[in-house]
């Protein structure tokens, strides 16, 4: 248990020498390096940031009110309605921009809560071990047996389908994956010399978990959050698409693809294509950024 071959510093190196090997980089320099090494990842990050800003500034930047019947119904793309109008005459572009609000809110909120709780449980499970670890792992196994969308349907049936209940359902869905990844990491971290050293000088378990283990899973936390954000956005859109998610009164990407768009897909293709493209581009960017971040921040996660 105590022998470990990984993570040993070069023999005989003093603390000062070790600092020389790893020069401190400023945040802006790190960002610049990331942009240079992963230009596509940087573009993806820009797309995601623009989407979030557009979601926040939706009332200011949309050309029309998303609820008003400002056009003739089924107007194709034109200079007055860039992305056309829907079956009631509402502006598709304005609705797509407003749609980003629900997607981004649900996605970011569920990922933030789900991955954070998952990280805490993962660390405790791996560090404490024993019967607690065993119990948590069996529950994780069982939760993994439910396809995400099926679990989401069951939970929204039980909880009711408000925006915040969808967030709650997504938290339950994201938890097992996060627990599993973080736990696997902590299992190796807790055998490393610095953890053993902290134990040897008598640090309390909670202090070791907080000060020595938590900072070392930070990279995984960021990568996990990015990768699962895409999944969360797709599940919310799928639920709303199926009619059991966010209320049809609110413009959402999934909601824009339901009945109306399906019924008129042959005559008014733009009703379905633009909201669909919005989801696909955002999720594509998130996946791309996730890959780039994983390569940069945490090579250990590669290939998982």
């Amino acid at each position, binding site marked *: 248990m105590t022998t470990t071959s990984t993570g040993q510093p070069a023999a005989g190196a003093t603390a000062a020498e070790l600092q020389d090997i790893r020069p401190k980089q400023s945040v802006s320099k790190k960002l610049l390096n990331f942009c240079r090494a992963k230009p596509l990842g940087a573009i993806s990050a820009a797309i995601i940031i623009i989407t979030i800003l557009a979601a926040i500034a939706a009332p200011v930047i949309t050309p029309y009110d998303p609820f008003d019947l400002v056009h003739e119904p089924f107007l194709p793309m034109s200079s007055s309605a860039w992305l056309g109008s829907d079956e009631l005459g509402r502006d598709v572009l304005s609705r797509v921009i407003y749609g980003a609000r629900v997607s981004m809110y649900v996605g970011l909120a569920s990922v933030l809560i789900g991955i954070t709780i998952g990280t805490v449980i993962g660390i405790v499970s791996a560090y404490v071990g024993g019967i607690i670890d065993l119990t948590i792992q*069996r*529950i994780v*196994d*069982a*939760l993994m*047996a*439910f*396809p*995400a*969308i*099926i*679990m989401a*349907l*069951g*939970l*929204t*049936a*039980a*909880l009711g389908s408000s925006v915040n209940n969808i967030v709650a359902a997504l938290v339950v869905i994201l938890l097992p994956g996060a627990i599993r990844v973080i736990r696997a990491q902590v299992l190796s971290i807790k055998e490393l010399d610095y953890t053993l050293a902290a134990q040897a000088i008598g640090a309390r378990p909670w202090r070791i978990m907080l000060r020595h283990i938590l900072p070392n899973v930070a990279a995984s936390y960021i990568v996990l959050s990015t990768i699962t954000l*895409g999944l969360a956005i*797709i599940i919310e*859109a*799928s639920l709303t*698409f*199926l*009619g*059991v998610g966010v209320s049809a009164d609110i413009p959402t990407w*999934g909601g824009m*693809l339901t009945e109306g*768009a*399906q019924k008129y*897909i*042959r005559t008014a*293709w733009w009703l*379905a*294509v633009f909201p*669909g493209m919005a*989801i*696909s581009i955002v*999720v*594509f960017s998130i*996946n*791309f950024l996730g890959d780039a971040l994983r390569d940069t921040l945490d090579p250990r996660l590669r*290939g998982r």
Partner: protein
Amino acid sequence: MRQYALKRVALIIPTVLLVSIIVFTVMRLLPGDPALVILSEGDASFTQEELEDLRRQLGTDRPIVIQYVDWIGGLLRGDLGTSIWRSGRPVTKLVGDRIFRTLELAVLAIIIAVVFAVPLGVISAIKPDSVIDYFSRVIALVGISIPTFFAGLLVVLVLSRGFGWLPPLGYADLWDDPWKNIQQMFLPALALGFYDMAFIARVTRSSMMEIIREDYMRTARAKGLAERIVLVRHGLKNAVLPILTISGWQFGRLFGGTVIIESIFKVPGIGTLLIETVFQRDFPTIQAIIIVIAVSIVIINLLVDLLYGLLDPRIRYA
């Protein structure tokens, strides 16, 4: 192998038990009182008597442990309970009538995915940075990012607008009218399998890339074997393990995707049944469908693991 198999089979018992507890908790405990939820839907007024009646019908007037034991007992006998709506029809029959169509869709999708993905992955591994490699990598990235429901709509859009072709209306079962059935099922299966195709192609590529550099590949070429035989018998055969595992996992995941695809293409499978029952808040039926799907996935994962152990001796002794 036998010991490995026994150990692996024994491990699923606690998992299945926990799965049933999770389903039970979500469906019977989370809503508080399912009877109250069902009756208060759409601000309908109801009497105390109606509430008591529904509670008795659902069995929620009994202690929670008794309810659970009763339900599990039923499950073991193949009795999934009775639907609240649909005049109390047995759920086993409802699910049994429809599960075959969902399975057909899932099997077709995984076949389409593997048939396209494996050659695509192998070619891009043999000729990295070629046009085909570039194409298949883009397809893989796009396939992973497009949500299933949008893929389904795109398939309908492209084929109906671009080619003026529409599947025959009115669902036909495989046994009644095989040709009509295949015509109807092909599109949904294609839309469903797209994501998995992308995923499997990615795994095939990286798995083949590693194997191509192995010494035994050079040895096979050096002793004069035809390139085709080198690639298939020495290369692909060794690359097949990760591909198999991923395909197995993906097959389980397909059950989730069928819910969406069935609703777009109006296939009367258990996916559409699940959505209908979610709308109706028919808790016993929702509970039954979810447990059937979850247990199927546990069993599929078990079969994949066993197959893996059978094919690769290293797993058995690890």
